[in-house]
């Protein structure tokens, strides 16, 4: 199921399909978040924003506004 990263719940995973914002895409790439790789929501901040995400050993924090631009193929159990 294709969705966007901001709609995933804690501990849900998916594959990065596309990043709509070019600057964001480049920034994500250089921080180790690569198209086609698995991404996981580790934690959603107490006030629902921002979120902690991992891909491999990369572990970063981004805002939901940015997560909205990241298309995800959600993994279902």
């Amino acid at each position, binding site marked *: 199921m294709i969705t966007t990263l901001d709609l995933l719940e804690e501990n849900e995973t998916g594959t990065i399909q596309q990043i709509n914002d*070019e*600057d*964001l*895409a*480049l*920034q*994500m*790439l*250089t*921080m*180790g978040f*690569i*198209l086609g790789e698995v991404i996981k929501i*580790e*934690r959603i*901040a*107490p*006030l*629902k*924003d*921002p979120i*902690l995400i*991992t891909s*491999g*050993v*990369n*572990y*970063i*924090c*981004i*805002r939901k*506004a*940015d997560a909205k631009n990241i298309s995800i193929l959600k993994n279902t159990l």
Partner: protein
Amino acid sequence: MVGNPNTGKSTLFNTLTGLNQHVGNFPGVTVDKKVGAFNIKNKKYTIIDLPGTYGLNPCSEDERITQEYIQKSKKDIIVIVADSTNLKRNLLLCTQIIDLKKPVILVLNMMDLLQKNNQEIKINQLSSLLGIPVVPINARIGKGIDDLKYAISNFSYQNNSFVDQHHSSNVIDETMLRYNKINHIVNECLIKKGEDKLSILTKKIDNILTHKIYGYLIFLSLLFIIFQAIFSWSSYPMELIENAFLLLSDFLTQTLPAGMLTDLIVDGVIAGLGGIGVFVPQIAMLFAFITILEDTGYMARVSFLMDRILRQFGLNGKSIIPLLSSTACAVPSIMGARTINNYKERLITIMVAPLISCSARIPVYTLLLALIVPKESVFGAFNLQGLIMMALYLLGFIAALMAALVMKWIIKSKEKSSFMLEMPIYRLPRWNNVTLSIYNKVRLFLFDAGKIIVAISVILWVLSSYGPDNSFQLIEEKYTSEHFDTKYNNDEIQTFIAAEKLEASYAGIIGKTIEPLIKPIGFDWKIGIALVTSFAAREVFVSTMATLYSVGDEDNTKSIKQKMLLAENPKTGKPLYTLATTLSLLIFYAFAMQCMTTLVIVHKETKSLKWPFIQLIYMSSLAYFSSLVVYHIFS
């Protein structure tokens, strides 16, 4: 030297050069271009520690600095420091620099962590696939440093390229192409024998530290403990230092021949230095705590927890580091704001950071609090002065947030706001680092600030020991003339003379000139003198008070606090430092912009005269009007 943030670059820099500076576990703590030197077989090499960056497509001011430097460099060997536990991402920057046709050495740091994760890197294979020298090290314990030195001294450039950039149409495709090739290399060179234990541990800790409720509770408790500790643990060493200075000035008064020079040394230099030396324990502890919080990786989590809240005030999660480290000193914190990508958020952070009480205010607060707050514990354990001190810090934070809110509405910007931050794995603080940080900061405080303090103390002593024309002579004559009532003994007469002389001195004249302006907020001309002298640096307030109240105290047996408690209002005969005056003074020092260094740094960081000027005006007005309100409420 370049590399991703959190790769231990600065630790390696310290190990190589022995030139010590701040190292943090937080992305982008190395904000300055740091230069050091080291020898290999009697040949001197210069090394520059560039701000951490993930790639050569800059997203922040810090990364821009690094990118520009690398592109301009001609013959320099570029030492790339990589985290060996995150080879793939770290190799991206490495291959970008290889393709700039720069001479490159790849240093794989944190080999100990790689081992703990049950992984292994085939160094020789990696070296031949990339076509560059690769050196595995562990900067924390200095392992592999000799190999690195050998690689540097025997370096010869081989022309090679990683990807052919002519084929890639845009930078994203190019980066993907790089990652594809890097993936092949990593698959060949990295042997995984087990699971990634360190990441698992870090996430377990994060379950607690970023928890919906515990997360904030832990953060607040930590702040509370820090302020309590600064107050209760430091009281004993502080008393010790205070007594040592009293003994010293007493000893000097006894042994040195009485005269001008002795007065200058005892009342000017020693009084000034003593007033400041007392606060070394508190400042050392504050810097120790800040360094530990950064070094362990906890600060990044605080940013994560605070982003949503700080956004309401026109700030960014990343602002929490400058704001928190402002409790130590606004200068490095304003430089640290460079990691904030958005110009408006960065500017607001810079503008409000000095409102947060820094370590230079500690001496002022401590002295003033001692005048009005009894030294006792409440609820059995908490130090009352420490609690009020914490309230003052809280006041600084609230004022900073309110000022930020106002600026959020005034400053216009169309730039998109974002917040992306790496969460480094949790590590024990590098105790070496903490000690070095304390040492450097205390040295800076005692010697750099000390120079200003001694100079101002001496000037002040001269200004308060001399007056225009023959005014001093007239005072002496007045008291020795036969018309004078002889019901006072000699000591009392000496005190009257000293008091009148101070009032007639140049310092007294300066204080009296500004008295009409500061009278509405409850200050007299003596405080006026202190306001003038502490414009350059707040902590000078204490030494000024020490000098002002030492002049005329012949035997130098009382501490400044005792002297200020005895000070009277000459008209009413009541104590001068009433609750209203002292509170007004506290508020004034909490908000006023009294730090030349900060203004200079703000000028450099904003590249304008406008912003430091606005900062000076808004903070001074805020201080004046808040003091006015406080004074009228309590008097």
